[in-house]
């Protein structure tokens, strides 16, 4: 009977190994794998946003906000037009940002977009489809 206790002890160790150690190792090894998947994908979106920032800061298109009594946004391309998809335009009415657009507009050539007269002398922001936000105080362009 004494000889049997050693194999039983080994069996118990084996069970503990399977039941505790292996799931624990699996749990703590998965996190890095999953998060790197998201990071690879996310870096593509961020690159697209940066690309758009570079285009706009270099004036392609140059966005000018003329804040007269009939305010408008002026889009001027200086080289080959890079389409700019604007999903929302807001102006600040003195207490909150008010949306102007209902639906999106695509700017692909020199264009002039009129804003409501209530935007006169108020700051404006432009939200693009790539998730960039550009801030335009009255009579300035994006820099």
């Amino acid at each position, binding site marked *: 009977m004494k000889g049997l206790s050693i194999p039983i002890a080994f069996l118990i160790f084996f069970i503990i190994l399977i039941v505790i150690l292996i799931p624990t190792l699996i749990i703590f090894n998965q996190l890095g794998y999953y998060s790197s998947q998201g*990071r690879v994908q996310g870096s593509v979106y961020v690159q697209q946003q940066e690309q758009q920032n570079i285009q706009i800061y270099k004036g392609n298109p140059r966005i000018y906000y003329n804040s007269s009594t009939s305010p408008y946004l002026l889009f001027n391309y200086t080289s080959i037009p890079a389409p700019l998809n604007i999903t929302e335009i807001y102006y600040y009415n003195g207490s*909150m940002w008010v949306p102007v657009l209902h639906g999106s507009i695509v700017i692909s050539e020199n264009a002039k977009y009129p804003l409501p007269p209530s935007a006169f002398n108020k700051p404006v922001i432009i*939200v693009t489809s790539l*998730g960039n*936000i550009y801030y335009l105080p009255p009579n300035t362009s994006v820099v």
Partner: protein
Amino acid sequence: MPSEITSEIILITLVVVLGLAVAGFSFAFLVPQIAFSNAQNLAENIASSSSISVGPLLINSSNAGSFVVMLYNPAFNGTAYVLAFAAPSYLEPSAGVYTPSTLQPFTVYWPNGSKASAVQISSPIYDVSGKILYSGHVTLYKVNFNTPLTIVINNVNSNDIVIIWFIVNEGGYLFRIGYTYTGVPTT
């Protein structure tokens, strides 16, 4: 002969008790751990593929600030929760680890002008590494990804920054998948 039976019974009882203890431990500790870890993986995945854009904070004479914020992730169409709170501007470098001490009332509006629905939360909010960031009663607003949001927050002044948290619910756990902050523009 009886002593052999006794030792055998002791051995068998010991093995059974040990087996039950191991199974009990794995069900009580490892199973919730696996569930939490899975939720954390999903949240981490959303967090690392999303980006947040924010516009400037403008404050009117009655100390109500307003800004536009957008949680951008073209591959994800779910809902998130948003929390906004003010902090002194000297805390700007540590905006990622600052947790609210006093919460200002705030409201979130959709692009069509209607108000987003508010949710009362009292379960803890984790960061994506699984640590508890904030636990306490808090009001969040339910919003969509890829939608610009107008937020109006009361009781802020021009020395403040507003910190915005985006939170997702994965498997019943709340994870902060991203944060950003905004302040009053200098020009």
